[in-house]
C-alpha cells in the first residue's frame, strides 16, 4: 500500500483514530468480496480502489486542487453534477457508511437520527474522512429533516450550499427546481471562478450521460438469468462511482459490462442453481455498508438490482442535451432530476411503479424493502410499497437496520425464512 500518512497529516486528520478505521476495512473487504467465487476480472479496478479508498482518489483530488480546480462534496443524488463538471470542478461523495463514525455523530445529534447522518457528522467532526477534509465546499439538499439540521452543524467551517428540493412534483415544483439549479450554477461559478456556457454545460451533460449509460449497461447484464456478477460487486461499483472521475468511471463500467456480456454469452453465472433473485429497495447503502447484500448472498439468494440512491436512482434517465440556451439546459436538468422518486415526495407513486417495473425487468423472485433505522420517510412508505407488490403477486420482506452488526443474526433469520418461503 502506498504511504498516505503525510497526506492525511497535511489534511489535518486524526491519524490515531483513522488508523483504527483503516485496520478494520481490509478484514471487511476480505470477508465480503474476496471470498466470492468466479468474480468478473474487471472487478480488479474496484478492489484496488476500495483497498486504498482513503488514499488513491484523495491524492488525485489534492493534485487537482493544486492545479486550481475546486472540489464539491455532495450527500445526495439530487445535486446536479453536470453544473460542477461544466465549470471544471470535481464532485465527490463523502463518508457516512460505517458504524465507526456513529458514536462521534451521537455526541452531537439525537440518538434517534438515521445512522447515515450520524456517521457523516461523526466522520466530519472526528476528522477521519479525507473527502470531508479535502472538499472546498459541501452541497446539501433538503430531502429530509435530519439532513437539514445536520447541515447546520456540518457547514460550520466549510462553505455550505443548500439546494431546496421540492416536496411535490407539480409543474411549478419542477420550475422551482430549475431556479434552484440556476442559483446553484451562479454560486458554483463564483467558487470555481469559471463561467458556465451552453458549450461547457452540454459537454458536461454528455459526460455524465455517458457514465449513466455505462452503469446501466452493467445493470442490464444483471437482468440475465445467467447472472454474471454478484450484488455485492455491483454495489461496490455503484458506491465507488460517487467518488470517481466520471470519464474513468464510464470507461471502467463499460469494461466491466463488456466482460459481463461475454460471460452471459459463455453461460458463466455467479449464482448457484436454485438461488432466489432479490431486488432490494430502500435507503442508500454508503461505503462500507455491505451488510445486507452479504447476508442475502450467503442465505441462498442473489441481489439482482438496487432500487436505491446507490442503485438505479443514480443513473436512470439521461438528461436531454438538445437545448440551445442555458435556460433550456437548466430545464432539462430540472426535469431529469425531478424524475427521481425519493420518498421525500408526496405523493410518490413513481417509486412503487419503479419497483414493480424493475422487479419484472430483473426477473426478481422477491423484493426486500430495507430502510435505515429512524428514516421515517422510507419506513412509512413501506406499507404502500408492500400493498402494491402484494397486488402484483410479488413477495416482499420489509426490514429495518442500522450499521451495527448486533442484529445480523436476526436479519439472517428473516432473510433465510423469506428465501425458504420463496422456495415454497
Amino acid at each position, binding site marked *: 500500500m502506498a504511504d498516505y500518512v503525510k497526506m492525511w497529516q497535511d489534511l489535518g486528520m486524526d491519524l490515531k483514530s483513522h488508523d483504527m478505521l483503516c485496520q478494520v476495512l481490509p478484514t471487511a473487504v476480505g470477508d465480503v468480496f474476496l471470498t466470492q467465487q468466479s468474480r468478473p476480472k474487471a472487478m480488479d479496478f474496484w478492489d484496488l480502489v476500495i483497498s486504498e479508498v482513503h488514499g488513491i482518489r484523495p491524492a488525485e483530488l489534492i493534485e487537482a486542487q493544486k492545479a486550481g480546480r475546486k472540489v464539491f462534496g455532495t450527500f445526495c443524488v439530487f445535486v446536479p453534477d453536470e453544473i460542477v463538471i461544466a465549470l471544471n470542478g470535481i464532485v465527490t461523495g463523502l463518508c457516512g457508511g460505517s458504524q465507526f463514525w456513529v458514536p462521534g455523530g451521537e455526541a452531537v445529534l439525537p440518538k434517534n437520527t438515521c445512522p447515515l447522518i450520524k456517521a457523516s457528522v461523526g466522520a466530519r467532526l472526528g476528522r477521519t474522512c479525507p473527502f470531508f477534509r479535502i472538499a472546498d465546499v459541501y452541497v446539501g439538499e433538503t430531502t429530509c429533516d435530519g439532513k437539514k439540521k445536520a447541515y447546520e452543524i456540518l457547514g460550520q467551517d466549510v462553505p455550505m450550499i443548500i439546494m431546496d428540493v421540492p416536496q411535490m412534483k407539480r409543474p411549478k415544483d419542477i420550475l422551482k427546481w430549475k431556479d434552484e439549479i440556476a442559483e446553484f450554477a451562479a454560486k458554483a461559478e463564483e467558487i470555481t471562478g469559471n463561467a458556465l456556457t451552453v458549450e461547457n454545460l452540454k459537454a458536461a451533460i454528455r459526460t455524465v450521460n455517458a457514465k449513466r449509460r455505462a452503469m446501466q449497461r452493467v445493470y442490464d447484464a444483471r437482468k440475465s438469468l445467467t447472472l454474471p456478477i454478484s450484488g455485492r460487486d455491483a454495489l461496490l461499483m455503484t458506491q465507488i462511482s460517487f467518488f470517481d472521475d466520471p470519464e474513468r468511471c464510464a470507461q471502467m463500467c463499460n469494461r466491466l459490462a463488456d466482460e459481463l456480456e461475454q460471460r452471459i454469452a459463455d453461460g458463466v453465472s455467479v449464482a448457484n442453481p436454485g438461488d432466489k433473485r432479490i431486488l432490494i429497495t430502500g435507503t442508500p447503502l454508503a461505503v462500507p455498508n455491505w451488510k445486507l447484500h452479504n447476508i442475502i448472498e450467503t442465505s441462498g439468494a442473489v441481489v439482482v438490482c438496487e432500487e436505491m440512491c446507490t442503485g438505479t436512482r443514480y443513473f436512470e434517465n439521461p438528461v436531454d442535451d438538445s437545448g440551445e440556451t442555458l435556460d433550456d439546459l437548466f430545464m432539462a436538468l430540472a426535469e431529469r432530476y425531478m424524475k427521481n422518486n425519493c420518498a421525500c415526495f408526496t405523493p410518490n407513486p413513481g417509486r412503487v411503479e419503479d419497483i414493480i417495473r424493475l422487479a419484472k425487468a430483473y426477473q426478481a423472485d422477491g423484493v426486500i424493502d430495507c430502510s435505515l433505522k429512524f428514516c421515517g420517510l422510507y419506513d412509512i412508505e413501506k*406499507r404502500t410499497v408492500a400493498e402494491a407488490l402484494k397486488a402484483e403477486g410479488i413477495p416482499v420482506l420489509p426490514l429495518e437496520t442500522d450499521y451495527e452488526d*448486533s442484529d445480523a443474526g436476526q436479519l439472517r433469520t428473516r432473510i433465510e425464512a423469506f428465501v*425458504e*418461503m420463496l422456495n415454497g
Partner: protein
Amino acid sequence: MSGHYGIGIDIGSTCAKTVAVDPGGSVVWRDLRPTGWSSVDTAEAIRRDLPEAIADGARFVATGYGRVSVPFADRCVTEISCHAKGAAALFGLDDLNVIDIGGQDTKLIVVTGGAVSEFAMNDKCSAGTGRFLEVMANTLSVSPAGLCEMAARGGETRISALCTVFAESEVVGLIGRGAPRENIAWGVVDSVARKVKTQAGKLRLGPGPLCLTGGLCDFPFVRTRLEAAFGRSVRTAPEARFAGALGAALYALR
C-alpha cells in the same frame, strides 16, 4: 417414503425442544430442557439422550436462534418455516395464522395452503415476548407461571410503556402505589397481548384460525388476553411449545 426417523431440534433462547418422528410422521419422542449457556453442549447432550433405535440412521434438522450451533445437524431451517410446518401438522390445518411467543422473540406467521405466505418478527426490542413476562415476574417475585395464574384473578390495569425497561419502572411505580399484585400481573399479560396485536397489524392475516405456539401456550390467561386483543378465538394445544421442533422433524423426513 424414506425409512429413517426425523429429528428436529429447536434451540430457543430459553429452552431447547426436541421432537423425533417415525418415517410416517408420528411423534415418537420429545424432550425439553433449558438451552443453558452453550447451545453446542446442549445439542450434544440431547443426542446422547436419544434412544438408539431412533437415532440410528436418523436425519437431523436444527432450528431456532441456536440452529447453527448443532454440529451434527444435516440441515438448518429457520424457525419461521419450522413453526409454520409444525403448527399446521399439530392443528391439522392448511390455513392458519401462527402466533409464536418465544423467550426472546415473537413471530406471526400466515400459513396459506400449508406454506408460509407472510411473516413478521419483533426487532431487537423484547416487549411482547416471553422475556418481557419473565422480567416483570422477577419484579413481582413470582415465576412466569405464577404471574399468569395471578393475572387471571386480577382486575383491569393498563401498563402503557411498551419498552421492557420503561414498563419495569411503571410496574415498580404501581407496586409503590400499593396496586394489588394480581392487577399488575393482569396488566403485564395484557401488555404482551396488545403488543402482539400491534405487530400483527403489519400483516394481512389469512382466513384460518389464530393458533398460539411457543412457551407461553401453557398459560391459559395469555390466550384469554390474546383473544380479547384480537377479538377472535385463539386455539392452542398442550404440545404447542414443540411446534418448531415438530416442524424441523418433519423437514428431516424430506
